[in-house]
């Protein structure tokens, strides 16, 4: 048994080395080529709803809706990655921010909410992001002084408090919910877009029954957020986060204001969570207290770690798998969580750094493993 395990592990390390090889080969390509390849990939992503690629289509559910869900989950993962992957803070109640963003849009924008102000979507969403960010600061201010594991349970509590509040408060209308959540625009498709399959000028861009518009919007936001976080990551802020993640006390000694940067990570993560919630429920047009359970929140954390915490591409892959696989393989609906649980254990044993690891983190893991073997 152990020989099988170790040989598997060795094979896996070999693959990891091959990955790094691929990565360095990629970065040694001429700039123009790299831009061209990324461009082609983006074109592919945008045209996915119109493509008829047989094997990847979802059998039961509308494929574009699944793509949209994937995009929203990627946005969630990018936000959660700031908190977990970059700053190293374990947030198990991230879904609370998602809910705050979603409910802000619903309450401010819907004609059926208890507070009828009927702001348009474009006004609601920035407010939702701001409110989610504020809730992140309010939660982080007292709790970020706590050590890692305590933070985990407190954030878990926060997520549950938000859910219970959504279920029992009058302003959220409980499980009866709020319908008529605003969509970005009521306009129909312009005629110059009608060359694309399933797009016609008689249909609305953002319609409940034709979600290509929503998918493109979500995809665009994902790209913008990934680029934004990437810039942050490579700035002073990002380096401080890494320092905090590796060793908080050492960072503090070296003059990094750790509390301030941890709060920033929390706030930025919360803002992205709020945006994803706002986006998802704009498409759904109906919100109730279902769908904000802690379990989903924990699955998101798992997706981030499995994908490769710290690496944006990795967490995106983790999120896509989490959103896509259950829809693609609906026939296993009753067993999918069971399979997922087993997959989590197997993954952490054979590939703890994640599917597409952050380079720095995988080195860190190797170091730790070496330390362990010295002690034994």
């Amino acid at each position, binding site marked *: 048994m152990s020989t099988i395990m170790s040989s598997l592990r060795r094979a896996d390390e070999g693959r990891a080395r091959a990955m790094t090889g691929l990565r360095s*080969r990629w970065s040694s*390509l001429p700039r123009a*080529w790299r831009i*061209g*390849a990324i461009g*082609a*990939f983006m*074109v*592919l992503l945008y*045209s996915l709803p*119109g*493509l*008829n*690629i047989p094997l990847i289509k*979802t059998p*039961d*559910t*509308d494929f*574009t*809706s*699944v793509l949209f*869900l994937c995009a929203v989950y990627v946005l969630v993962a990018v936000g959660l990655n700031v908190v977990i992957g970059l700053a190293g803070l374990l947030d198990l109640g991230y879904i609370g921010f998602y809910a705050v963003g979603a409910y802000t849009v619903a309450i401010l924008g819907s004609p059926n909410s208890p507070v009828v102000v009927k702001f348009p979507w474009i006004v609601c969403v920035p407010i939702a992001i701001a409110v989610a960010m504020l809730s992140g600061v309010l939660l982080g201010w007292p709790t970020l002084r706590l050590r890692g594991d305590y933070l985990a349970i407190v954030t878990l509590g926060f997520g549950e408090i938000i859910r219970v509040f959504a*279920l*029992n408060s009058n302003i959220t209308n*409980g*499980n*009866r*919910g709020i*319908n008529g959540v605003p969509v970005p625009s009521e306009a129909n498709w312009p005629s110059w877009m009608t*060359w*694309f*399959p*399933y797009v016609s000028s008689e249909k609305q861009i953002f*319609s*409940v*029954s*034709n*979600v290509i518009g929503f998918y493109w919007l979500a995809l665009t936001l994902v790209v913008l957020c990934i680029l934004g976080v990437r810039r942050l990551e490579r700035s002073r802020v990002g380096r401080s986060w890494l320092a905090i993640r590796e060793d908080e006390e050492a960072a503090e000694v070296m003059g990094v204001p750790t509390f301030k940067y941890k709060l920033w990570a929390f706030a930025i993560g919360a803002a992205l969570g709020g945006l994803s919630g706002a986006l*998802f429920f704009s*498409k*759904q*047009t*109906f919100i*109730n*207290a*279902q*769908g904000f359970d802690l379990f989903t929140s924990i699955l998101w954390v798992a997706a981030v770690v499995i994908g490769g915490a710290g690496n944006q591409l990795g967490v995106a892959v983790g999120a896509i798998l989490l959103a896509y696989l259950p*829809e693609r393989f*609906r026939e296993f*609906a*009753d067993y999918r969580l069971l399979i997922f649980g087993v997959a989590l254990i197997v993954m952490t044993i054979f590939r703890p750094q994640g599917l597409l690891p952050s380079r720095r983190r995988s080195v860190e893991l190797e170091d730790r493993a070496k330390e362990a073997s010295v002690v034994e």
Partner: protein
Amino acid sequence: MKQALARAIGGVAMIGLLAVSAACADDSSGSGDTATGSTCDLKIAFFGALTGGNAQLGINIRDGAKLAVDQYNTKNADCKVGLVEKDSAGDPAQASGLATSLVADTKLLGVVGPAFSGESKVANPILSKEGVVIITPSATNPALATQGDKTFHRGLGNDASQGPGAANYIKTVLKSQKVFVVDDASEYGKGLADQVKQVLGATVVDSAVVKEQQVDFGAVIDQVKGSAADAIFWGGYYREASPFLKQYRDAGGKAKFIAGDGVKDQAFVDGAGAANAEGAILTCPCVPPEKAGGTFAADYKAATGREAGTYSAEAFDAANIMLEGIKAGNTTRDKLETFVDSYQGQGVTTKFKFQENGEIDPASVAVWAYKVEGGKVIAEQETPK
């Protein structure tokens, strides 16, 4: 290697282009009107939970609809109708994608479902916008009829008819003076409890809200006993009701227990224990199967090996109305919609006739009270109006 990469990029671009053009071609051929095609491969769909915590109700409905379709196909072997099953797990977030995939299938004319009110709020606008006929056999939230979904129909009374039925039973049959109302904060449970509170007015001495999947009711039981109520109305499902009743009776509570159709299931009696559940009153806007007449109960048992469950008969009726319409030559969504709107006929549960807003004619709504006797749920009487 650089060349290989360039080739790869080119390849991806080519595949992309090809696939786009293929999709264009595919789209133009597929968007014909339903009327032009053959009328013998039409479909209706079941929409509801087949997996997850609320699967049992969905399975009851699916089996009822399936029985109707199977019977139709035996009689009309030369021109069959298909049944599509969409498993939403009762989750509104999954409902939109499923509904969108249903409307894309131009052979599909109608939906039996969606089973729950939450998912209906998401799915109904999508289905109705594309003209798919909806007859729900179980979603009883009154607001569904006022959402502006023109193809929506409800094959049974809504919470606004069941709530007063239960309340009048408490008032005139049980003659309770002090009623304690519990709900589970679900759309269904809270809606029902609110209706009961409204009708009973001052006789409601106190109320409590329980949590989904709560199993330990110590605090609520203290509250019920403190209020000295002589009747408890439960707005919710049997999953929470059975442990509550068991613990309440164990703690020496004597008040009568009344609940809605979400509790009307043998699983409730088994979970609470027959002795504890004895005498519990369960209301339901559904006619008892043995009074329904016809061979439905026997046929269902023969087909599935189980007794017909809650909402099976309603689903059977809903599917039959659509099948009757298809049989009569209404082979497009619009024609079927017109047919259902003006439909009048006797089903196994009641006499069907829909109002303008899709609600069933109030005259055909009968709320029945069932009683737990000797460990079985037995029809007792129609509730006073």
